[in-house]
């Protein structure tokens, strides 16, 4: 076993401190009784209570969740379709160009994506609001979905699909009954990725949102410009809690799956 070393311990502590001290301070101050953010005046949960009364924040939160769910679902469908075409279509004319165009938005500065979408929406005379934010988010997150799904499809054994056709499936049934269940974990990770991207996007949302709908990141950002309030700290703490919960659940589930699978494989090896 590796011996305990002061150097390792120190770098570990410093690293984690660097990552988490800001968040811990934020969490602590969200329970501060004082209105002044930097002065500690005893423990209180009143800011959480006030947050629940704040219509503007609640509206923004609701919009954000709706946008995230709908846009990540659209992105998952489109991104999966694009991935299938890219991986399956073999060599066709302009394939390299097409695949390059799918991945380009990944490296495009968000400001440019946001600006071009804004120009498009103005050009076609679309009122900016929840619909435009959703479309914009679906557009940029579908590239991420397509990257995740195509990396799974590359290692997918085509003969499984052919076997399904051979046994009487139509093309669509073969996809629904064989391909999709097998690549489902990748599609779900793609959806989760798109969902988180949409949740914390500020730049593109600020280009494409309008007076009728604002997302939470925009709301927080504009509120902070007027000064940090303990309410914002409370809101941020809730978001940290949700994200932490999500990450822990996801990793527990995948770990349990891995353990189960390993146990089954060992059982199989023993008995053959």
């Amino acid at each position, binding site marked *: 076993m590796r011996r305990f070393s002061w150097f390792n311990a120190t770098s570990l502590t410093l690293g984690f401190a660097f990552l988490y001290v800001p968040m811990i301070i934020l969490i602590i101050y969200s329970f501060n009784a004082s209105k002044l953010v930097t002065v500690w005046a005893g423990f209180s949960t009143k800011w959480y209570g006030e947050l629940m009364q704040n219509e503007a924040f609640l509206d923004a939160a609701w919009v954000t969740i709706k946008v995230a769910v709908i846009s990540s679902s659209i992105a998952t469908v489109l991104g999966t379709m694009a991935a299938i075409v890219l991986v399956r279509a073999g060599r066709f004319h302009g394939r390299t160009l097409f695949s390059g165009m799918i991945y380009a938005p990944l490296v495009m500065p968000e400001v440019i994506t946001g600006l071009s979408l804004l120009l498009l929406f103005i050009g076609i005379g679309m009122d900016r609001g929840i619909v435009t934010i959703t479309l914009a988010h679906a557009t940029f997150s579908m590239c991420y979905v397509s990257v995740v799904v195509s990396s799974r499809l590359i290692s997918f054994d085509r003969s*499984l699909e*052919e076997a399904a056709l051979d046994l009487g499936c139509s093309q669509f049934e073969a996809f629904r009954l064989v391909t999709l269940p097998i690549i489902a974990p990748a599609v779900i990770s793609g959806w989760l990725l798109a969902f988180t991207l949409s949740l914390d996007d500020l730049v593109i949302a600020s280009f494409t949102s309008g007076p009728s709908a604002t997302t939470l990141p925009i709301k927080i950002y504009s509120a902070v410009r007027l000064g940090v309030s303990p309410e914002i700290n409370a809101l941020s703490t809730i978001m940290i809690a949700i994200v932490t919960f999500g990450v822990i659940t996801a990793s527990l589930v995948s770990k349990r799956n891995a353990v189960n699978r390993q146990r089954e494989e060992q059982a199989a090896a023993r008995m053959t």
Partner: protein
Amino acid sequence: MAETVFAPWDDSNAKPLIQFKNVTKRFGEFTAIDDLSIDIFEQEFFALLGPSGCGKTTLMRLLAGFETPTSGEILLAGENIVPVPPNKRAVNMMFQSYALFPHLDITENIAFGLKRDKMPKPDIDARVEEMLALTRLTQFARRKPHQISGGQRQRVALARSLAKAPKLLLLDEPLGALDKKLRQDTQFELMDIQEKTGTTFVIVTHDQEEAMTVASRVAVMDEGRIVQVATPDAIYETPNSIYVADFIGDVNIFEGHASAAADGYDIAWGEGQKPLHAKTSVENLDGKQCYLAIRPEKVSISAQKPENVGNAVLGKIHDIAYLGNISTYYVGLPDGKIVKAQTANTRRISRRSFTWEDDVWLSWTDTAGVVLGR
């Protein structure tokens, strides 16, 4: 009355189940199947044999419907199936990689094709039971494919492709992943299942022993063409070309110049050697280049020159390969040519009659070899 032999290919009235009519398949510039025609009959166990890359898998995929011929027709029971998609063909395929569905258990894998046919549930259950019993998998019914061994997976793949009772079952190197012992057992199991179900099997293999064991007829392929189609014994005893003779089993080949002689030819071959004599019905070789192919087991080895035998040559033992049941002697002739002679080891090795560097006579009869023009 004599027992009727199963040989529909000799019966001019028999209707083939499958007919390839001048089928060509090109991938871009590359010709994978080259103007190929064959007939395969009902209840046949038809083996496709050939080196890697000769187009065996492509031929199967044409039958299953995953590839469309560039030209030519494929008939199944007299009907052109080229426009029929794979899911509408009464043909099932057992894939080289087995292609078991990893997210379904063994029962669901076998039931998969039956469900697509909208078969009533009790009938599906009964059919799956039957298939599980046939392939001796009943106790693994609820396992996932990754929870069973390679040999069991192969049987699941077989059960799944047989479940729909296809007219034709295609098996693409079905036993490639098994070790030798399991392979042999499975070959007999396959023959047994083929007999029980009466399904027509087309099997691809690159193992000539396997083809000889299981098949009613063997087709030897080379570069997208069929070189010879015949029963296993005919293809072994009377190959139609050096390629086939060389591909199926071991063979010694003498190249020489033919001149017509009693019932066959005299073949002048080596400097200062007596011409070899071979009886044959092959015509039009007089005065031409020809080949004499002789199987090692048809070559006798002796210390003295044998009397009354068609052909005899003197040589020196170069090497001996002891294979347990048989020994192969590699005998060097004066011109440097090596000839293989095989004898069964009926005696213990310590009493073997020949050893390295012994001078020996190799001999064979007039009818032991096959005279080939190419």
